[in-house]
């Protein structure tokens, strides 16, 4: 049993609640639904589970036009019609025109794979409902060839959502659910440590302080997230910014250096400049 427990990887810090939820899903072979602020590593989780447990990873990125059927298989009738006009031999076997979708591929793997269904909320409202049976029984029927595809090993299915649409109850009932909270100071230090092991301690402390202060500013349209912090740190390192430049004395009076990596919204930058202006006036 030990090798099937997910405990995070060398480049992904998993909190205990996340590990528990993932392990529950792995044990029972049920899908796990992951929600959370953008940039908290929802999509990355699937890659890391695959890496951590040494399983193949299959990905299905959902768009607004994606249909549930495309995940199973598609019957390319148009190609068959064309072939029939050209007198191609392949036309006699309908199986030649069945294109497998990611779910079929996942069901057909030799070892238990990890399947990522990314941003399920982008699709049509009916999309999750159309996958109920497939996710529950891990099998589906191919009408064209009259065969039933059954999963050899129940894949570990990781589903991410950004909450743009509500998911139906029946669907939720079949999943485990985990909401990735924004990491606290401690966890964040671990995360940064995993990504930039050589980071000078004082620079990291100042940068984190400055980052959390920035997140505290009320009224920001888009709060900077973990991935933005990591980008910002990379820039700070590349530019070789000294820790003093981030020190607390003038943090309220100037924008942090290279703020473009943290604030992605014009209005937010304006808001911030206004606040700094007010602070400077007060200080005088």
């Amino acid at each position: 049993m030990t090798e099937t427990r997910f405990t995070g990887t060398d480049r992904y810090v998993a909190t205990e609640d996340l590990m528990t939820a993932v392990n529950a899903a792995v044990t029972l072979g049920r899908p796990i639904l992951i929600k959370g602020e953008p940039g908290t590593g929802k999509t990355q989780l699937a890659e890391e589970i695959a890496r951590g447990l040494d399983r193949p990873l299959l990905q299905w990125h959902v768009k607004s036009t994606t249909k549930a059927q495309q995940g199973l298989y598609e019957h390319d009738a148009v190609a068959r019609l064309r072939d029939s006009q050209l007198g191609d031999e392949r036309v006699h076997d309908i199986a030649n025109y069945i294109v497998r979708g990611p779910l079929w591929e996942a069901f057909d793997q030799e070892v238990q794979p990890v399947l990522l269904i990314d941003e399920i909320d982008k699709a049509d409202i009916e999309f999750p409902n159309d996958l109920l049976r497939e996710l529950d029984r891990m099998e589906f029927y191919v009408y064209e060839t009259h065969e039933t595809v059954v999963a050899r090993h129940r894949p570990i299915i990781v589903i991410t959502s950004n909450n743009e649409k509500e998911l139906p109850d029946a669907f939720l009932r079949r999943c485990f659910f985990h909401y990735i909270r924004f990491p606290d100071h401690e966890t964040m230090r671990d995360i940064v440590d995993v990504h930039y092991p050589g980071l000078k301690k004082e620079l990291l402390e100042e940068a984190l302080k400055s980052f959390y202060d920035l997140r505290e500013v009320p009224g920001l349209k888009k709060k900077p997230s973990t991935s933005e912090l990591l980008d910002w740190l990379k820039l700070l390192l590349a530019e070789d910014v000294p820790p003093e430049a981030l020190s607390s004395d003038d943090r309220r009076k100037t924008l942090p250096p290279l703020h473009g990596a943290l604030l992605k919204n014009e209005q937010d930058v304006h808001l911030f400049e206004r606040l700094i202006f007010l602070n400077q006036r007060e200080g005088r």
Partner: protein
Amino acid sequence: MLIKFFSMLREGGIKVSLTEFLTLLELLKQRVAGYSVDQFYYLSRACLVKDEALYDRFDRVFAAHFKGIEALFGDDVAEIPEDWLRKQLERNLSDEEKAQIEALGGWEKLMETLRKRLEEQEKRHQGGSKWIGTAGTSPFGAYGYNPEGIRIGQEGSRNRRAVKVWDRREFRNLDDSVELGTRNLKVALRRLRRFAREGAADELDLHDTIESTARNAGLLDIKMVPERHNAVKVLLFLDIGGSMDDHVRVCEELFSAARGEFKHLEYFYFHNCVYEGVWKDNRRRHSERMATMDLLHKYAADYKLIFVGDATMSPYEIHYPGGSVEHWNEEAGATWMKRLLNTYPKAIWLNPEPQQRWDYTPSIRMINEIMEERMYPLTVSGLEQGMRALG
């Protein structure tokens, strides 16, 4: 095992299904959780709660069950002891007496005094003119009369002028299965229909296919188009309870007609005026609120906004923070109305109150002003005018 926990969760408003509960037991059997309480907590949460908004509630149930704490769920507002307010005596005041009662002064003073009184008073009180109780002439309490009174613990609305209702009145959901007379309303609503093709291309476009195939020298070239459906999107806000009780039937009819007519119809309930929260299920109006701010972000500006309400309320409820009769609102109703109208330029207010009475109710005039005169009576002709304004 854990059955009490299961039923407590359901009582606490987390709709755990039996299969989810069995899944949890299965996991325990497989020893996924180990033996620590923390692990069990994470495990049961991943298993039973499917919405981060319910995490807090789950935490409270969990704490209550595993620490033996008796907790009250859903009620954050202090309950006023019931027997203290029980209706026993109802005094009919003469007009003369009414005239003698002066309002205590402005709104802020009234609230402040109430807060003080609540602290001072500990026993049930009846009659008299200072303490909170029933049938007295103090501005606080129920079944009495004071023009600026705050009503506490009173079932019906006696004169519909009280500034604050502390009762948690529950109203049944507007039933949309009523078909009576909805036909007229449907015809009027049909004005809003506008068909458009949207979404994935999954319908065969026969005309284009033939044309392209011909141009392709007979080689088949299939063209697809998206399905055609009503592209008009509507946000419907329904006032519920209080003075709206008189108009329930006609609102039910409208609601039922609107449900049949639009594919994109989102409806929300509010009470008297829109504030920071609205709700979808009236039975759970206190526990399952949705932030109006989220709503503004969630639905794009091409939604059309329809308010249905009698706009009959105390002017405080529109223009003062804290003026709502049900809760403490940080920002005035007018502010929220303006926010909504700024986001959704196409908006109307349908009023079931007869039009000739509008001028006599100050709050209707105020709402009409906020709506920039886009208030229409809830009749077939009024609906037609309204739809024209939206179109």
